[in-house]
């Protein structure tokens, strides 16, 4: 029998599961995912938001399954991008950026903040998008909000995990279609 490689994403979920079990009652979201663990496909993305004091910026990485993203871009924009292949379209970055802008919104103290789309990279089945929000002045901020709808327009079961790491604090959210916002009080 062969099992799909349970990569970084699954590890992240396991970790998160544990913290959630210990901490809160949002547990129910995840359990159904584990009924068959590695055997079944996960509809999951993992986004890390980290504050860089040096750059005075929020540095964001989003890990998304390539095939899921490709499917949604095809469905949404009618383009075949052949991501991570030799035939990858020159427009791939444009569409990935466009999609990310429409699905991932961060705001600080109530104001939407545009990110710089630095680019993308592939790691096995995953695409990693690198985004940065500049001039963040964290010490003066009170609230950071994130709205994450990655792939929920395509997959009902999509779960988007967001980890915030700033000033030594860590906070994690699991977002689904009906509950797509997370708020961090600083």
């Amino acid at each position, binding site marked *: *029998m*062969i*099992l*799909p*490689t*349970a*990569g*970084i994403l*699954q*590890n992240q979920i*396991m*970790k998160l*599961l*544990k913290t959630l079990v210990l901490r809160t009652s949002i*547990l*129910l*979201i995840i*359990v*159904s995912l*584990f*009924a*068959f*663990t*590695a*055997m*079944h496909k996960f509809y999951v993305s993992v986004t890390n938001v*980290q504050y*860089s004091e040096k750059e005075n910026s929020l*540095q964001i*990485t989003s890990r998304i399954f*390539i*095939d899921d993203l490709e499917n949604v871009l095809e469905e949404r924009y009618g383009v075949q991008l*052949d991501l*991570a*292949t*030799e035939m990858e379209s020159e427009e791939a970055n444009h569409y990935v950026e466009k999609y990310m802008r429409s699905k991932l919104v961060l705001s600080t103290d109530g104001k939407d903040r545009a990110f710089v789309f*630095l*680019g993308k*990279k592939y790691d*096995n*089945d995953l695409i*990693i998008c*690198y985004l*940065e929000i500049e001039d963040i002045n964290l010490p003066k901020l009170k609230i950071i909000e994130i709205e994450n709808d990655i792939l929920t327009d395509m*997959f*009902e*079961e999509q779960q988007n995990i967001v980890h915030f790491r700033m000033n030594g604090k860590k906070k994690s959210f699991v977002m*689904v*279609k*009906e*509950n797509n916002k997370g708020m961090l009080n600083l």
Partner: protein
Amino acid sequence: MKKLNCSLTFLLCLTVTLSFAQQEINKERESGHSNQSKFKQLYEEFATPNTYRSASGTPGPDYYQQQADYKIDIELDDKNAKIYGEETITYINNSPDDLEYLWLQLDQNVRAKDSKSPLRDEKEFSIAYSSEKFVKNLMQKPFEGGFNIEFIKDANGRSLPYTINQTMMRIDLPQLLKSGGQVSFSLKWWYNIPDHTIDRARSGYEYFSKDGNRSFVIAQFFPRMAVYSDVEGWQNYQFWGRGEFALPFGDYEVNITVPADHILDATGELTNRKEVFSREMMLRYEQAKKSYDKPVLIVTQQEAEQAEKGFSEDKKTWKFKAENVRDFGFASSRKFIWDMQAVKIGNKDVMAVSLYPKEGNPLWEEQSTKAVASTLKSYSAHTFDYPYHKAISVHAKNQGMEYPMICWNYGRPNEDGSYSDRVKFGMISVIIHEVGHNFFPMIVNSDERQWGWMDEGLNTFMQYMAEQEFGEEFPEDITPNKAYPSRRGAPSKIVPYMRGDQSTISAIMSNPENVYQLGPNAYGKPATALNILRETIMGKELFDHAFKIYSHRWKFKHPTPEDFFRTMEDASAVDLDWYWRSWFYTTDYVDIGVKGVKKYYVSDKPTKKMKDYMTSRGLTEASFPPMVYLVDEESEDFEEGLRDKSPSETSQDLKEYMMDNMTAEERSQVEEPKYFYEVVFNKPGGIPMPIIVEYTYADGSKENVTYPPQIWRKNDQEFKRVISSEKELVGIVVDPKAETADIDASNNSWPKKEQNSEFEQFKQNIKGK
């Protein structure tokens, strides 16, 4: 040079000894402890060797295994997705024990309505469901699966009493089955075939709504004998769904009746080929037997597409005979395209075969049989010549499942026939993996129910080698990659798992039902552990020999983990108990670093440490013969004058020693070391591993040293080395080629490298472009 270094080392040793002697013991008396050494032999973990299984890892003089021979008649009802069967089992008791009852496995019962399997996992409502998932999970009637046993009769036609406990069935024998005796009995049954695409059953059908056909991949379709052995007695651990199978070897005669327009292949030799093949197919088959470089189509896509429309009401029986196999599987559909080619294995021809619906093309006609042939060659070279006459790869959606001589594999192109590299490499990898399972566990027949890693781990390790060899054999198939992009096997790939949350990691030596993540646990980690063992710990020559010995010793037999562990040591003279203990019996991880480097200079003046020592013992300098002292650059003894001098310049005693003990010529050839370092390595991780070090000197030259794992035998935390060199040391890197699965590289360098975050690295890379 050598002489000088020796004497320096001697003197240095003395200093170290002296400093040790200084330490006073003024702690409270501690209590004792048992032997906690990570290098302790595994006497407590291993079963005691006996006459069944020897301490060398070989089958002992009294080793035995049972035999189960089957004669089976099967009818496949395509229209209603049902299967009917009648079998006669002849069970031969080679054990020294007399048996009161027999245990048979009813694996289909895992899908019976009263199965406990779906009940054992925790379930809660999701916040939201797709309609499809909602209907499936909350609205549908459960599938009416499981065996319906019609009768069980002895050789004289008398009913035999039996008891079914979930997926296991006990047949009570009217009289003892004596040691050395045999018993025959017959069973009749039927069951509903599941749609394997719904819950990833290991066998079943896929329905193609466009043409109304099914494609069947059928296994676990008959009540099968459980294994009775010296280790488990009856292996009747229930089939819950994850832990695979434990099966005795035997000879099979199986007749399979299917619609007349089906194409079918199965475990074993087709004995009535002329009855089921058309004349055209026979001619093509004869051609295929002589085609060593590319497959020959036995059934073309055009013919398969024609057959899809037939829905014949007639029947045809395909007859197979297989010797010394542990199981039987078959695939049948009117959708199948069929190709074959010959592969030379040793001095024998083996047929590499593929069966696939048109939905698999063009990928399948391009890659499947090629991958089968390449796998047979690679695995044979590393173990033993593939002993069966054929190996078949069947395309079934989302499947990756192995049976003797036949396996089901995924990898489906888009509807327009296009496919990405991910689909292609996924498909080639799964074919290599499943065909590879012929060796482990179909032939080297470990107990999959208890030890998932013994076949999955060994096979994933072999798969990695076979993939790399596939890439070397067909470079044009893997471009633009330079090496085959293997997903498991390379040490770096297991790091995220091994540094993960300890509460969700199990030791490899766990039952597959009880581990958190079966993929990394039973496949990735053992495969990586063996890969590291081969490339870094033992070396390819010693490993390959021992691995081959294991394969030969246990082919067509039932090995245990100890048989494997013992053989690898017995055939190589490499003590590996520490390796098995930490990689297989614990969830420890590898993390070794360089903690610090101190610079020393040679002096003939006693250092403060030496003076303290002398004072404490009431000694004076005169009490010692002339000595050479090493001064720590950061200590108060250090003087600038010591810098950039050779030892004979700063130590008069050393100069005189050299004058007295070396000829002028020897002295002229000596290159005196100018630089002296004490390096401290540390080990935050639990696994003792060799320290692989790359030293870099000021002139750019590099020196690679590997300190064996035994350095950790007395101090499991820290390890010091001294270096004397003519050149200034400017850098140290531990595990420079990332070959040990070290989970934290941030402590692997001196001077400490600024570890950029993944984000910073990416940002720098794109700026560089």
